[in-house]
């Protein structure tokens, strides 16, 4: 208890020095907490914007073979799928049905190929909100059957302006040539760096061109109510949509995998050269592919993870510099208080207690610095989150409605604080030990 009181008193004795030391720690804490909160917020925003751009959190695609043996992508009305949607209705916030193609877009003598989504704009009103318009307008897109929303670079490549008509050349699902006329309504900001560069059109018109019936579509996208259940729900649909033949095949594959473990190999090379050279065999009916947003977000999260690692390295460098500062400061403190230490020792204070005073001082400095850093981060985050970046569409994908958002993680704050405290204690340990080892007589006779 006495050690605690003395430690507190010592911190307040040299206010300026304590402030500078705690300030250095606070700065390091601010950098890492702000970076973590910013990257967390960016990941959440990208996740939200991705889900709007892709039209969901879970994506189901149907594949079947045509009479000519050609694989086609479409989903017919299916009882299995309807039943799963009914059974999991409480976990699904909403779903949309999209078609897609990669047609040639032609304007005059220029042409380019680009991904085109067929969307029911009335069903997916959130999509329109998430698109950053750079030219033209999105108003009335659902009413104009042949309306087309183009990524800005595609519009520029074609040399087309909003209001003009482009030709869209594509193949029907059965492989026949088809051409449609689309009126460009607006240009939107491109997100090509995230593999999300797509044009949007009304599904009914695209379906007509693709030769898909009005009740058919190519992708079923679902928004889930609770994102923490995303992987579970994906698994439910993945397993639930497997046909009896697929279930049989997966059992067979499991058996094959077990057998493969018993394969004879020479120098690690399997003796069966056909292994892995699998050929797709045609099947009856529709087979489904189920993907989740988490799978799509993996590269983004990997990138943010790298960013956080870089932040952690910077934080550790800052802490190392601060650690040297703490060690030097405590050595100075030891020299300044050498007579005081001698007096305390002469009056019966144990070596352990002397060491504890120094360590507690370092601990509270670290704690004060960390708390200050967290408070500063909160203040800075509050100010930054009030700024609107609406004028720069390139940033829209990282923002929520034009504003930066920060996502604070209690776990990472606790870990960083613990790291600061441990480093402060390590930095103060050697001066504390040297102080404790000072012989009382020698300390009392010191003239410093």
């Amino acid at each position, binding site marked *: 208890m006495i050690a605690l009181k003395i430690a507190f008193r010592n911190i307040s004795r040299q206010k300026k020095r304590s402030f500078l030391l705690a300030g250095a720690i606070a700065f390091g804490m601010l950098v890492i907490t702000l970076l973590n909160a910013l990257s967390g917020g960016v990941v959440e925003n990208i996740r939200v914007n991705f889900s709007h751009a892709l039209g969901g959190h879970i994506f189901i695609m149907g594949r079947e073979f045509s009479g*000519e043996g050609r694989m086609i992508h479409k989903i017919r009305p299916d009882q299995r799928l309807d039943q799963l949607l009914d059974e999991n209705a409480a976990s699904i916030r909403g779903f949309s049905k999209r078609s897609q193609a990669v047609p040639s877009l032609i304007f005059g*003598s220029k042409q380019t190929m680009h991904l085109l989504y067929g969307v029911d704009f009335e069903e997916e009103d959130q999509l329109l909100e998430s698109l950053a318009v750079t030219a033209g307008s999105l108003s009335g897109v659902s009413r104009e059957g042949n309306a087309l929303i183009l990524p800005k670079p595609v519009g520029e490549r074609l040399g087309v302006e909003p209001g003009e008509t482009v030709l869209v050349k594509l*193949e029907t699902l059965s492989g*026949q040539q088809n051409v449609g006329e689309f009126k460009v309504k607006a240009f939107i900001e491109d997100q090509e760096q995230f593999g999300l560069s797509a044009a949007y059109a009304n599904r009914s018109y695209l379906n007509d061109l693709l030769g898909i019936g009005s009740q058919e579509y190519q992708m079923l996208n679902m928004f889930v109510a609770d994102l923490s259940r995303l992987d579970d729900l994906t698994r439910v649909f993945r397993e639930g949509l497997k046909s009896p033949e697929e279930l049989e095949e997966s059992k067979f594959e499991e058996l094959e995998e077990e057998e493969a473990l018993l394969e004879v190999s020479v120098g690690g090379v399997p003796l069966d050269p056909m292994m892995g050279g699998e050929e797709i065999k045609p099947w009856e009916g529709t087979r489904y592919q189920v993907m989740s947003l988490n799978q799509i977000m993996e590269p983004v999260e990997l990138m943010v993870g790298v960013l956080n690692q870089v932040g952690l390295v910077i934080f550790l460098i800052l802490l190392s510099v601060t650690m040297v500062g703490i060690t030097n400061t405590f050595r100075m403190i030891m020299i300044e208080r050498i007579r005081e230490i001698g007096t305390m020792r002469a009056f019966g204070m144990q070596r352990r207690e002397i060491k504890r005073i120094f360590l507690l001082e370092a601990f509270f400095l670290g704690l004060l610095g960390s708390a200050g850093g967290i408070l500063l981060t909160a203040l800075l985050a509050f100010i930054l989150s009030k700024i609107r970046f609406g004028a720069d569409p390139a940033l829209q994908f990282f923002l929520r409605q034009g504003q930066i958002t920060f996502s604070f993680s209690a776990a990472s704050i606790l870990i960083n604080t613990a790291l600061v405290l441990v480093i402060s204690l390590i930095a103060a340990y050697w001066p504390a030990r040297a102080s404790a080892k000072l012989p009382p007589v020698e300390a009392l006779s010191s003239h410093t």
Partner: protein
Amino acid sequence: MERLRFVFWALLALLVLSSGVLAQDLREIEKILEKIDAQSRFDDQDFSALMTMIVEDPEKGIEKMVVRQFRRDDGRRFLLLIQEPSTQKGQGYLLEGENLWFYDPSSRKFAHTSLKETFQDSDARNADFNQWTYSSSYQVEGYQEDVLGKFQVYLIDLEAVDETVPFPFVRLWVTQDSHLVLKSEEYSLTRRLMRSSLFPKYAQVGGALIPTQLILVDELVEGKKTQIALSEISVSKIPDHVFTKSYVERVSR
């Protein structure tokens, strides 16, 4: 009342008669299509030629391609080997019955492709290098007599009977006397004109009559067209091994 009954029966007779005449005429046109297909086919002979393709693209400029073509129609096989430009040299298209393979020497792999696909970046389709199948792939929608330049022609409208052909609708200009296709227009499913093909020169090669000059005009992209000229035409026997993957790999090295 008697007069009315007479008019009714007369009209009915006229209708039956005219539909019969029309059906007979359509059968005549179908026979012409069969003849067109037959005279483009090398039944008992092999066929080889050197194709020079000039592709005019408003964005990429003018590109020249030289392609060696081998055909064996009774085995439903062909091989197209690209010799120029040097960047595409060694690429090949091998048709084996129903399967068309594209070989890329840079990856040394064969990839499955389709007769409906575009040949390289030209306006030609892979199917253009195969025998014509108008009579089996299309049905006659209608026809009329017309004049194209100095030629008396039949203008024949065709609709695809199945989905094995890239263009669902085709219009042909066929000479009335020799039954040569002088021009064709290919339409999309929405009946938009996509490509016009002109066949100004023909040559009698063995038992077949084949166009030796083709002009293919992209009707969607302004200024895009492809001209194809055939030379070094031969009907000599082609060794069997030419129509194999191993041959394509070997000559592409």
